[in-house]
């Protein structure tokens, strides 16, 4: 592999990992705090992308889309959590899985109904279009922005989880939510906040991915697949695990397609199997 190919693969792997962190960390935190594998998490990303598309189409502002999409998706997510999931927390995982799976189908059909099935693209600001030269290689300017922006958001999220009082409550909740409740903390509010935070991050990722790739009614499947792989590799319920899993998956995708082109489709799955054989609980176990 040439130096150019190596550098492109490293940058691409990091960019992919940074967007995956935004999606998978929310999924992982929701699982950690209430034990729900939220199958509709990909739908939050997709909804964010479509709302972002509409905002840019109406206003021409990409930045406004980055603000409006999370607000809209958080409203939807909170309604789903309060009216749909909350009554099911005391029942088994299967009920929650069925509900979130059904919700993902509903959102998918809603999207088809509202926006149609054609591919759409979120226009990028002109100053983020084109490419830059880094050590003789060409790399898209927007992808560098995605890397920095998503990286900064992931760092902010880490700071909130690891260094604030709310983060301490959250981490305690990840260990034992009933114990947190015994301290008089409103855990229903905590769960709703985690749900809202996860949805907001997913929506931001949706806008970013929608500008980097395209927006279509099947993007939720692609994103939820990747996010599930990340949390399984990294360790369910762990923010640090989501970061580790995203990096592993990002680099597996980047280098897999280069080194074993015929196996590109299976590389992430092979990596997941290898990690599970080595550490069945995932790379990081916080809770």
């Amino acid at each position, binding site marked *: 592999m040439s130096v150019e190919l190596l550098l492109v693969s490293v940058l691409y792997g990091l960019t992919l990992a940074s967007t995956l962190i935004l999606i998978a960390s929310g999924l992982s935190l929701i699982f950690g705090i209430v034990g729900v594998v939220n199958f509709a998490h990909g739908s939050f990303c997709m909804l964010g992308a479509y709302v972002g598309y509409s905002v840019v189409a109406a206003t021409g502002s990409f930045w406004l889309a980055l603000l409006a999409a999370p607000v809209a998706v958080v409203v939807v997510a909170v309604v789903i959590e309060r009216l749909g999931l909350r009554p099911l927390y005391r029942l088994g995982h299967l009920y929650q899985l069925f509900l979130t799976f059904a919700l993902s189908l509903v959102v998918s059909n809603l999207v088809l109904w509202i926006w149609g099935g054609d591919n759409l693209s979120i226009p990028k600001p002109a100053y983020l279009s084109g490419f830059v030269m880094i050590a003789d290689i060409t790399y898209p300017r927007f992808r560098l922005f995605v890397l920095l922006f998503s990286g900064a958001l992931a760092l902010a999220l880490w700071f909130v989880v690891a260094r604030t009082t709310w983060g301490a409550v959250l981490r305690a909740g990840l260990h034992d939510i009933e114990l947190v409740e015994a301290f008089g903390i409103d855990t229903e509010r905590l769960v709703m906040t985690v749900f809202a935070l996860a949805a907001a991050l997913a929506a931001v990722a949706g806008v970013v991915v929608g500008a980097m790739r395209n927006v279509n009614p099947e993007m939720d499947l692609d994103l939820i697949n990747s996010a599930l792989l990340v949390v399984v590799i990294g360790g369910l319920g762990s923010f640090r695990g989501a970061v580790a899993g995203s990096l592993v998956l990002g680099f597996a995708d980047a280098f897999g397609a280069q080194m074993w082109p015929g196996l*590109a489709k299976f590389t992430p799955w092979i990596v997941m199997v290898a990690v599970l054989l080595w550490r069945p609980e995932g790379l990081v176990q916080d809770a």
Partner: protein
Amino acid sequence: MTTRRDFLRVVGTAAAASVVEPIAVARAQSREIKVGIVSAYSGVFSVTGKRSETGIRLAFAQSRYRDRVKYFIEDSQVKPDVAVQKAQKLVEKDGVDVLVGPIAGHEALAVSEYCKTKHKLMLLVYGGNVKIAGENCSKSTFMVGHTVWSVSAPGSSWIVETLGKDVFMIGSDYSTGRDVVHYMELDLKKAGARIVGSAFAPFPNSEWAPYLAQIKTAKPKVVTGFVGGSDLVNLTKQMEEFGLKRDGIVMVQSIGGFSDVQAKAMGDAGVGHYDVFHWSHWLTTKENQDFIAALKKFAPDDHADDGHVLGYDVGTCIVHGLDGAGGVPDTDRMIAAIEKRKWTSPRGECFFGPNHAVVHPLYIRQVQKVGSEYRTTPVKTLSPTGTPGDATGPGGACKLQV
């Protein structure tokens, strides 16, 4: 010796026949015509299914059968087993007179094989599996749209003559992508091309960076093959973002990948690239303009797309078959009429080859920006193309059977 009784029997029978037969014919000519459509009505392909249905409905709305036609719609879910089940329901329970087949090649083949056993007339809007034009051809199946071969390989010579000899092949890693790359590679080599590299990406695939790095290293003039659906939007955008377009590398996508809608999603990244297809919204022929105007009136929210056009062609073929059968949905007479049909479609002049695969015009289209609009404009008309049904054909030799 003829008795009085014999005489009365003969006269009575003749009199009854002369009264009953016209009544029966009149009844057949006025009874409803049941058109079954088994197509994609869920998921992302539902857009294509609905557009082709709109085209069929427009063709009937313009015909004298507009008040007699009754539609029976089923969702194939783009799954061969479901498509066959739904076709069985349409044929055996609903008793449809004619079936419009599913859009994907594998399900089209499965339903065609079923229709063969029932001798049920089926017309395909898409479903361009070459085997249906070859070893699995059927007397009762007509490929009205195209085959994956007819809208890919015949563009190869133009690519070499116009854009350059150094070609990188790229395909989505499933049957259509593999087949198209195989067919095109054969014809490109015959035309003198040098294949400098090839890659197959998983389908679906959103990220093309690793493949673009391979393409860049191979230094081709042209990237061609078949990349499906939204993947093509990503590939085109990323080709620009990674500087391949600046390096002068041009893409030629087969099977009309750069529709106007796709081109809009690609934005400026698509401008200058080409595809191979049999229709364009921007063909200036009277038939195309009339069709677009009629569709605008019939379905004001729709932007005319190839789904509409191919649905319309299927619809007019059914209408032609009914005309040839005296307005009666008689399978054999309809088949005989459709086999001989030569018509001016919005695509151009079309007719059926001996294997029941359409011979259609073929255009090289280029994505151009006109004002703020992205258009896939025809820039070169190639020779009309049909899929050979002999031993040299991509799907093997066709022996039409009932």
